[in-house]
């Protein structure tokens, strides 16, 4: 072979020798010769492959590289095996240098791979000969260079605050992801960015992170949200649709600073096992490994003392078997079952099935992640189990300090103002007092005692505990004994023992779970669906009355006088005996709640709780101690305590009919005696004031005196005296009628139930929101008696929306509104909760309409009704109190007046007075700012003068020549068909659409063919029972049926009041009359279908 090659190899040898002599920089010297070797190879090739002379140098290099690769691999491969290949194929031979193999042999082999192999072997030999120091040095040299990153921690000196993000840093973007997949997504994004790094479109995000305390979110650091969405595009479990939100720069750092309150584990801590056989079991930490990842636990073992036959395979056994109960390890028991061989003894401990048992407990190491550290809440029972020793000789007391520690955290959260506490640690230990205030971890107590009497002391919540003394009556708030009450008999630190009122047994609980309570017995009389004194069905034959409720069971006295202990599930149903009656010994009827007396036997008295099958009566008398005062007797042996005046000699038939509940008039239960009923029928009526200063107000008649009535206004809770003639009855359907008509109508509707009748309507109409009813009726707005420019200004969007829609502040763009937002808060810090909530946004008023409190008033039209009373109560704001003006109008519309514009700080006018305009101001400011307010049609004024008496259309209104063309779309309601009955009144109140109607000859009844909306039935109805349906909603189309514009189709442009029929509403003419706005009394219109 060539000399050069030999030389190369020698050279290598030489290097090796040098290395052996311990020269430095071996690696560096080692490299060149290798490279040289490859070069030589190439030369070699060139010599051999003369026909490829024109090969470019680049290609050579490439091949060199290729060869290099192969060589590397060859270090680990026995290439000798390739010999046969070489023999087979001539070309290969050519490439590797043909006959060299045989000629040179051994060390002189020209195959570089072969040489590497040899070299490797040799180096191994050499290394074996080297001293350890040398090896170490070599290793250092070999890897020291590569791992040049000397750990410097150069950034550690910078204080964290200097690392705060600046505006030049990329932003953080919050991305919603599927909860539970946050970590996965962060990893995916990392991999994705690496994958796409050298592609045309690399990800441009800088980092992604996730915090366990922020589930469902990952944060991406990038310059723009586009880069973020590009990055997350296509990832499963990412919800870009839920928005990519920019994290404010000041919140960026806190995202990385979030720190879960570390639950430190120290020996003695109580923990619970998270999963496995011991899942949920309480355990005590014995020791902790250095890195804090594993803890040694001590807990009560669950050893299977009834193992099945060995035949079954383990898996099935595990799946099938329930886990054995907790039981302290007992050497004898275990060897009895498992055999002596399975248990070995090591010092004081036993080893069984790989676990160590000491003092009966199992001691086992767990990873912290397999433990529940928070909310362990060990119960006293569990803890006492730990203290109990197997032999029973060593009675070590529960280490209360440990329990205290465990329950301390919880204790903070259970403190309430008014609790009696004592300080048990710290410098004021021993002090006791009453909790005044709790803020986070600090409680302020007002000390009780000789020296400190009345002083306020601030203390960490953890160092106080509730204080009880023997004799206190307490109630258990939480835990398994919840709702138990009793008398404290002893207090040991924070364990309180009390004598239960119910079970008469001693119960020990932590003081933190107790409160002082006056109530006796189980706090609630309700267990499940059943309540004390319920009549319950126990089985087919047996019923009983619950006379005592216990924690989860009842004591029931059945009809035979037997007392039973019953679980809720044993009760099949509750019986209702409210309507049941029986006859007593004298033949009088006997009802529930009657006071009766036994005429025989013990002569017990009592109030009837239930009657069963008209035979048994369950009575209750507090004076009887037995069975909670409940006793059962036969109805026949009872006599009324209050003798009935006229003992009727009852014929059996009459008696029966009376006893038949089905024949009792409904509501008959009320009985005449019950109603202390108002003498005047009008008392209790819901009325509307139709004249005078209170016109438009709604209220309830509280009392009457001749022609005068005392009316409690729904608004402002005010009582006024007013002439009855100024009142109209407001029916629950929103219609009004003169008071005098009330009696008559009601009489019809409610049949014979005169007794209770008065009670009904007021309750019904007393809506929860008084403004809903009355708001629109205020003179300023809803009354519409004055030409209300606002009503017509529907051309201005602000008005349209504010008229009835929730946002009166739609005009938030108006200076007035902004102005008020600058003021410290004229609304006195959010009288409505919503208000203060929204104040978190920089400009709460910008979306003020979203606050429910506002909506409430606004939607009810309450803004129009800025009545004095209401202002005072709702807002308590002096600025609103000027009685003569329409409150909100002045606020919003005053906008352009300088005082309110408030854009300048000087004018920002924190005083509400700034808004308080004079009445005169009102008028001007209203029209001034919006020229568009000017009515579009002069015709508006026509209606101003028209009286607002309810309009009752004539019987044949539907056939009116102007209405008839539109009649097929009219929505009508059947009215007045009950009295006198027409078609049995069964169409009364139903709405229908007119299908057709034509006038018939004068002396015949006019009819119209209607299709009823609810069931589509079509039939003809006498027109005099057909009444128009009043338009009810905004944008509804309606036909004007009365007045000058009769026959015109209009669209309602204002949300009409639901009840007021004579209300003036803003409408827009459509069709031929064309886009004119005007006002129309509501009942002058008929709603149209479609």
């Amino acid at each position: 072979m060539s000399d050069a090659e030999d030389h190369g190899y020698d050279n290598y040898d030489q290097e090796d020798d040098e290395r052996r002599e311990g020269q430095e920089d071996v690696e560096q010297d080692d490299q060149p010769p290798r490279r040289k070797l490859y070069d030589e190879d190439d030369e070699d090739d060139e010599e051999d492959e003369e026909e490829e002379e024109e090969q470019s140098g680049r290609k050579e290099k490439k091949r060199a590289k290729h060869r290099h690769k192969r060589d590397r691999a060859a270090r680990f491969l026995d290439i000798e095996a390739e010999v046969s290949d070489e023999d087979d194929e001539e070309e290969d031979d050519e490439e590797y240098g043909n006959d060299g193999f045989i000629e040179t042999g051994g060390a002189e082999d020209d195959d570089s791979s072969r040489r590497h192999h040899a070299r490797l072997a040799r180096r191994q030999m050499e290394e074996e000969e080297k001293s350890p120091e040398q090896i170490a040095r070599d290793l250092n040299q070999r890897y020291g260079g590569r791992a040049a990153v000397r750990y410097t921690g150069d950034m550690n000196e910078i204080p964290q605050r200097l690392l705060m993000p600046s505006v030049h840093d990329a932003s953080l973007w919050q991305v919603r992801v599927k909860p539970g997949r946050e970590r996965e997504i962060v990893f995916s994004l990392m991999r994705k960015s690496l994958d796409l790094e050298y592609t045309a479109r690399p990800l441009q995000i800088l980092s992604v992170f996730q915090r366990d305390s922020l589930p469902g979110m990952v944060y991406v650091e990038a310059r723009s949200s586009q880069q973020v969405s590009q990055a997350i595009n296509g990832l499963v479990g990412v919800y870009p649709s839920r928005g990519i939100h920019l994290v404010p720069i000041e919140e960026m750092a806190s995202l990385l600073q979030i720190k879960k309150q570390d639950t430190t584990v120290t020996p003695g801590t109580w923990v619970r096992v998270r999963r496995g056989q011991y899942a949920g079991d309480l355990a005590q930490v014995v020791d902790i490994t250095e890195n804090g990842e594993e803890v040694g636990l001590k807990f009560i073992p669950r050893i299977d003392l009834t193992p099945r036959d060995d035949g079954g395979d383990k898996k099935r056994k595990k799946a099938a078997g329930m886990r054995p109960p907790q039981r302290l390890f007992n050497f004898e028991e275990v060897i009895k079952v498992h055999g002596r061989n399975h248990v070995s003894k090591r010092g004081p401990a036993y080893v069984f099935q790989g676990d160590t048992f000491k003092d009966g407990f199992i001691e086992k190491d767990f990873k912290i992640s397999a433990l529940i550290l928070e909310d362990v809440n060990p119960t006293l029972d569990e803890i006492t189990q730990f203290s109990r020793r197997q032999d029973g000789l060593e009675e070590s007391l529960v280490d209360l300090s440990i329990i205290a520690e465990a329950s301390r955290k919880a204790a903070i959260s259970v403190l309430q103002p008014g609790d009696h506490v004592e300080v048990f640690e710290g410098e004021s230990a021993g002090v006791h007092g009453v909790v005044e205030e709790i803020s986070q971890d600090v409680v302020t107590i007002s000390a009780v005692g000789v020296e400190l009497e009345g002083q306020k002391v601030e203390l960490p919540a953890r160092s106080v505990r509730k204080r009880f003394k023997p004799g206190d009556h307490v109630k258990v708030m939480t835990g398994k004994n919840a709702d138990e009450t009793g008398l404290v008999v002893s207090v040991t630190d924070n364990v309180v023992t009390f004598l239960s009122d119910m079970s008469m047994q001693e119960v020990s609980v932590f003081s933190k779970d107790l409160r002082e309570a006056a109530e006796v017995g189980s706090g609630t009389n309700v267990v499940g669906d059943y309540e004390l004194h319920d009549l319950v069905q126990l089985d087919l034959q047996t019923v009983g009355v619950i006379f005592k409720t216990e924690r989860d069971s009842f004591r029931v006295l059945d009809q035979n006088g037997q007392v039973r202990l019953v679980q809720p599930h044993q009760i099949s149903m509750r019986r209702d005996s409210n309507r049941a009656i029986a006859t007593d010994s004298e033949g009088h009827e006997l009802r529930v709640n009657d006071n009766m007396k036994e005429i025989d036997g013990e002569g017990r008295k009592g109030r009837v709780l239930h009657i069963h099958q008209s035979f048994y009566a369950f009575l209750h008398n507090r004076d009887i101690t037995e069975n909670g005062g409940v006793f059962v007797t036969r109805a026949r042996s009872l006599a009324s305590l209050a003798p009935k005046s006229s003992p009727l000699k009852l014929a059996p038939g009459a008696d029966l009919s009376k006893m038949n509940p089905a024949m009792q008039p409904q509501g008959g239960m009320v009985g005449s005696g019950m109603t202390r009923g108002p003498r005047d029928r009008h008392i209790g009526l819901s009325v509307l004031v139709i004249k005078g200063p209170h016109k438009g107000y709604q209220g309830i008649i509280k009392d009457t005196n001749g022609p005068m009535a005392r009316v409690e206004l729904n608004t402002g809770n005010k009582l006024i005296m007013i002439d009855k003639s100024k009142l109209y009855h407001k029916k629950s359907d929103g219609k009004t009628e003169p008071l005098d008509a009330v009696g008559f109508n009601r009489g019809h509707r409610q049949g014979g139930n005169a007794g209770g009748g008065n009670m009904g309507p007021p309750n019904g109409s007393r809506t929860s929101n008084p403004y809903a009813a009355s708001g629109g009726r205020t003179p300023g707005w809803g009354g519409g008696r004055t030409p209300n420019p606002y009503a017509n200004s529907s051309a201005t969007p602000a008005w349209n929306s504010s008229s009835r829609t929730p946002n009166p502040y739609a005009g938030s763009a108006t200076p007035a509104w902004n102005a008020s937002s600058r003021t410290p808060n004229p609304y006195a810090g959010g009288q409505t909760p919503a208000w203060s909530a929204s104040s978190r946004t920089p400009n709460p008023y910008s979306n003020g309409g979203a606050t429910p409190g506002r909506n409430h008033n606004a939607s009810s039209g309450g803004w129009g009704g800025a009545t004095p009373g209401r202002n005072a109560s709702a807002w308590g704001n002096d600025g609103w109190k000027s009685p003569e003006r329409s409150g909100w109008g002045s606020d919003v519309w005053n906008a352009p007046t300088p005082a309110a514009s408030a854009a300048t700080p000087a004018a920002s006018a924190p005083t509400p007075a700034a808004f308080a305009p004079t009445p005169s101001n009102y008028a001007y400011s209203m029209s001034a700012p919006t020229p568009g307010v000017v009515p579009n049609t002069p015709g508006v004024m026509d209606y101003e003068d028209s009286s607002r008496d309810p309009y009752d259309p004539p019987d044949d209104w539907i056939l009116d020549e102007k209405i008839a063309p539109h009649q097929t779309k009219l929505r009508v309601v059947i009215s007045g068909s009950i009295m006198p009955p027409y078609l049995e009144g069964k169409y009364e109140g139903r709405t229908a659409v007119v299908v057709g109607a034509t006038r018939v000859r004068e002396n015949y009844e006019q009819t119209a063919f209607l299709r009823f909306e609810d069931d589509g039935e079509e039939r003809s109805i006498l027109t005099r029972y057909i009444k128009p349906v009043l338009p009810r909603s905004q944008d509804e189309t309606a036909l004007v049926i009365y007045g000058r514009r009769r026959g015109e189709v209009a669209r309602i442009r204002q949300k009409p009041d639901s009840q007021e029929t004579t209300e003036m509403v803003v409408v827009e003419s459509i069709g031929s009359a064309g886009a004119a706005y005007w006002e129309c009394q509501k009942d002058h219109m008929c709603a149209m279908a479609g």
Partner: protein
Amino acid sequence: MTAVIPASKSRQLRACLLCGLIQTSNDFRFNGCPNCEEILQLKDSADRVMSCTSTYFEGVIAGIDPENSWVQRWQRTSKYVRGMYAVRVRGRVPEDVETELENRGIKYRPRDLSSDQD
């Protein structure tokens, strides 16, 4: 340079107590910690890996561009290799490492966020 990106589902994920890098314990054993190997000497030493890395970490950061990332600067990992980092790692490096850091005049900042107060 980029560290090995472990599988996110791996159960053996551990975070380096010094730099917070997340790798599997095997990767730590075979390759060491690419940032701190020089001082921690994790390679081929399972014990060392156990004591200098922790499974008790929280919050995962994908450090894609450490040099320019504020997150990484905040975490003081700007100069480190690209890879997955933990926001918090519970525990402290062994005492010998702490001593060594002290000798070199390096302030040790445990990664449990306890020294963020400055």
